[in-house]
């Protein structure tokens, strides 16, 4: 197993008024695994904790965050020190926007720096950068440009280059598709799939379930900071009867092409989480037992689900 996140909890201590502190639990009992050669998509609403998971894996959560549960990489527990050693080397992030690039540094130099960080020897780094640019259809002269001088589509390919130019085995792509026109979306998705097919583990974080289904092997569905289901991509078909959790089914039926059915309620706020199932307020199948305690993760039809009715 390349990555194994088990029972992850993240909370923040924030100042509510004056010196009065409050704790916000933003991730509760989150589980996900990624194998080598596998592409796992994480889908869920904004505010469901998708990006925080990436930050927790990379060890770049803000100082006021507290973390419980475990994250293991290649079977070994990730300590803060080990995360700092591995990020950019073994584990690389494909960031969401161009603003992740240094605006004052030429694009080629940034990718070369990522290559060196990623374990490529200094004298070979430029050659590897050249190859990577060629592979992603970036002309050699693009290396001399600054980030503001390249288009959105080119920027996306530069960001992918920074992550894959080294020797990272696990790639985390944070919302790689929004704002791109359909051809660029296809191109970006193909790049991610190709990386998985080469044996790397890819974790793709997205709100776009249709984009996820085009390339993912498995789909982890997040709601209010927890994994409610981990499904096979093929489970998303027809009326969604193969899906295990009512939220996943609702998400599937909310697509414009599948009924456009809205949820009954909004996602609960981190400071107002219910005692029982986090989806209870919107769930059509809710019973008293659901509201009493959080459902534990179970395996149903070879997928994980947190629902007592599944």
């Amino acid at each position, binding site marked *: 197993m390349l990555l194994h996140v088990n029972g992850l909890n993240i909370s923040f201590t924030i100042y509510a008024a004056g010196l009065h502190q409050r704790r916000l639990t933003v991730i509760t009992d989150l589980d996900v695994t990624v194998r080598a050669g596998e592409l796992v998509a994480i889908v869920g609403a*904004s505010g469901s904790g998708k990006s925080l998971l990436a930050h927790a894996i990379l060890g770049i959560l803000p100082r006021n965050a507290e973390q419980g549960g475990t994250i293991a990489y290649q079977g070994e527990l990730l300590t803060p020190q080990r995360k700092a050693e591995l990020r950019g080397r073994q584990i690389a992030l494909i960031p969401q926007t161009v603003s992740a690039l240094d605006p004052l540094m030429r694009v080629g130099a940034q990718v070369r720096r990522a290559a060196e960080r990623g374990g490529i020897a200094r004298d070979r780094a430029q050659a590897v950068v050249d190859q990577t640019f060629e592979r992603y259809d970036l002309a050699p002269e693009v290396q001399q440009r600054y980030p503001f001088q390249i288009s959105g589509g080119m920027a996306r390919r530069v960001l992918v280059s920074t992550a894959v130019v080294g020797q990272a085995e696990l790639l985390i792509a944070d919302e790689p598709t929004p704002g791109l026109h359909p051809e660029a979306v296809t191109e970006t998705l193909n790049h991610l799939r190709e990386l998985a097919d080469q044996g790397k583990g890819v974790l793709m974080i997205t709100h776009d379930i249709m984009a996820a289904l085009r390339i993912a092997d498995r789909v982890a569905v997040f709601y209010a900071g927890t994994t409610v289901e981990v499904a096979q991509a093929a489970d998303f078909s027809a009326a969604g009867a193969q899906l295990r959790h009512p939220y996943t089914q609702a998400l599937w039926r909310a697509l414009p092409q599948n009924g456009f059915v809205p949820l009954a309620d909004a996602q609960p706020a981190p400071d107002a989480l219910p005692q029982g199932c986090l989806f209870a307020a919107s769930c059509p199948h809710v019973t008293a037992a659901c509201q009493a305690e959080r459902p534990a993760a179970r395996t149903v039809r070879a997928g994980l689900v947190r629902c007592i009715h599944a």
Partner: protein
Amino acid sequence: MLEGRDLSFRHHTRLPWLFQDLQLHIAPGEIVGLNGPSGCGKTTLARILAGYVRPVTGRVTLEGRLLPRQGYCPVQLIYQHPELAINPRWRIAAALAEGPPPTANILAALHINSDWLNRWPHELSGGELQRIAVARALISQTRYLLADEMTAMLDAATQAQIWHGVLRFAAEHQIGLLVISHDLPLLTRLGARVITLG
């Protein structure tokens, strides 16, 4: 009727035209979809129709008259990124009260939690903030709503919730909608008359 006549636009006299002599009309209660490749001028067209940008040629009229230069504009534009549309230094309650305030029904239809009102924009998620941006345009003075990739950043469940709120309000008040989106299934579901630019 919101009408754009002979609209042409380019950012500079040395740059190519984004569009030329474009005709477009939206009737009260009508839903018009707009799509086309990125960079073809969809957002610029919406900004022209909302009165934020002057076209190089042509004009925009509402019921035969030019858009008002003062007061609340009956043509409201909703952006893709709400964090760029809401003043980061105002609490949510202040942002909602910038124009005539939306009714409690609208806040309920968009699932806006009253706890959010005392927060700062950065303390809400993208989906929560977009609900605020939509709510403040859903007031009776609005006649036309231009939704520029309004839900492109949002998950399907949030997208459906927001659209149901907007569609109900638009039907009740006979509001005309222009929906800019790459998502063809969405335009089909809304029953939009689709115009392709570029």
